[in-house]
């Protein structure tokens, strides 16, 4: 069996990854992390942009992390990234219900090398409590990855779910911030999200999620175009690989594929965040 990257040799940035850590209540946390890195190398992922979601429910709920758990997870994520600077970048995770802590944690995370902010489902996306966080994101030039349920039709337990419409309202209030709408294939009706965010140019869906509905990629390209989409895996790396292979079948121009694979990420985070991708002067101006 060839050990060539399954998704080809070109740069590839996963903008939605997670790692585990010792305080998350799992004895196999190191195996999970090692499996992500092994599969990433097998696929050909140049950079994983990752976060740790507090204690993942061990000592506070995954989508409502306590300030202490958020900080603990961020410290673990910072340590992982510092230990593997060739492959890892990271988001600082905060709970906007604790505004002062969240703002302080963003500053602390940025000083430790975080290149973005991760928001969960601790508060609805268009809630005013998110405004100070977004103002700081704009001042620091940090993209915001926001957990989203595609088409919120009712409340679901253990999360304050937001959908594309909710996040679009926040993005319209903060046009200087780049928002990443999490996992278009990660649950809920993706077909609802596409028209909901079409006219909000600073909002970029990532393609991750366990769902591999046929027609999703075609529709996303039709509604938003390749320059708005970001490749990612989240919790299921095989679906990420499957989507890359499906993009090949669609026959997109090479530039469009490169945009989705890594160049859009370089535009959002800054090409300097990903030096192992092609030189910065090849990144087309936004």
């Amino acid at each position, binding site marked *: *069996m060839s050990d060539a990257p*399954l998704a080809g040799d070109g740069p590839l940035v996963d903008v939605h990854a997670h790692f585990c850590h010792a305080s998350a209540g799992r004895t196999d946390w190191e195996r*999970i*992390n090692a*499996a*992500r890195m*092994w*599969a990433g190398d*097998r*696929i050909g992922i140049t950079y994983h942009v990752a976060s740790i979601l507090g204690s993942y429910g061990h000592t506070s709920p995954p989508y409502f992390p306590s300030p202490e758990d958020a900080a603990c997870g961020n410290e673990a994520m910072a340590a992982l990234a510092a230990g593997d600077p060739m492959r890892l970048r990271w988001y600082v995770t905060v709970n906007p219900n604790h505004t002062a802590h969240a703002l302080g944690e963003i500053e602390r995370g940025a000083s430790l090398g975080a290149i973005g902010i991760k928001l969960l489902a601790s508060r609805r996306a268009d809630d005013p409590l998110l405004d100070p966080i977004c103002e700081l994101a704009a001042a620091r030039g940090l993209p915001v990855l926001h957990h989203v*349920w*595609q*088409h919120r*039709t009712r409340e*679901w337990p253990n999360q304050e779910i937001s959908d594309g419409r909710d996040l679009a309202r926040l993005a319209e209030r903060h046009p200087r911030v780049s928002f990443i709408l999490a996992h278009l294939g990660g*649950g*809920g*009706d*993706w*077909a609802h999200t596409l028209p909901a965010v079409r006219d909000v140019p600073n909002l970029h869906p990532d393609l991750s999620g*366990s*769902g*591999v*509905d*046929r*027609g999703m990629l*075609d529709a996303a390209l039709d509604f938003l175009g390749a320059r708005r989409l970001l490749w990612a895996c989240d*919790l*299921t*790396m*095989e*679906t990420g*690989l*499957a*989507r890359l*292979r*499906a993009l090949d*079948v669609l026959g997109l121009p090479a530039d469009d594929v490169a945009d989705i694979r890594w160049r859009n990420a370089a535009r959002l985070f800054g090409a300097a965040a990903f030096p192992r991708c092609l030189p910065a002067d090849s990144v087309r101006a936004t």
Partner: protein
Amino acid sequence: MIDCAAYIGHYPFRYLPHPDPEGLVRVLAREGLTGAWVGHLPTVWHRDPAPGNAALFEALASHRALLAPAPVVRPDWPGWERMLRDLVERGAACIRAYPMQWGMASNDPRMIELARACGELATPLLLTVRFEDLRQRHALDVAPDLTAAHVRALARASEGRLVVTGAGRELIEETHWGLTPDEQRRVHWDFAWVWGPPEEHLAHLFRTLGPDRFVYGTHWPLRLTQNPRANLDLLPDDQRNARITDAGSLAAIRKTPT
């Protein structure tokens, strides 16, 4: 290797691009698959499956070398026993049943009768756990996912082959470890909805159940056909040479007197 979980026809709750036999034949060639068991998607929600079965056989008539019909038999419909025999005689590769869409509980005697009748005809009975993720379903699409209790009841009651498509790790394990070794051997699973890395559910199931309990299913035209192949390609080193079962061999069993 054949695809045991393909369909033709439209889905009532979402637009599907060109779900026709010609498209499926092209996809099979692209994916290196040698054939498919093909169901008729609209029939899942029909009360009387006969017209949908007829449409399926007609649509596949010019592709039978690659596409084998997987028609529906509903065991609460008058004359289902005759329908089953006719369909098997006409070359059905397996029989599809949808107890959740028909409102049948796990111990429904009619489903058990169907499983036994399929077993007597050495024809696999194919069950579908889900068509879409629970979180995106249409308000009218209210049937819950198939349960492990349904599968266990059928595996215990009939010596026939069961093929279960669309299950995740939890349902597979709950079923498998609730069966005797003889009963376990009656059940095969596709892994279209089983997670790969980093959780590595598929590798875990291969290690604990054995890869021979699994068959290849894509769920085309609902899902990307690239997904099961990607999952196999990302198996860790100790499972790279794992060999799954070709569902075609399950159907062929009925041609060999036992």
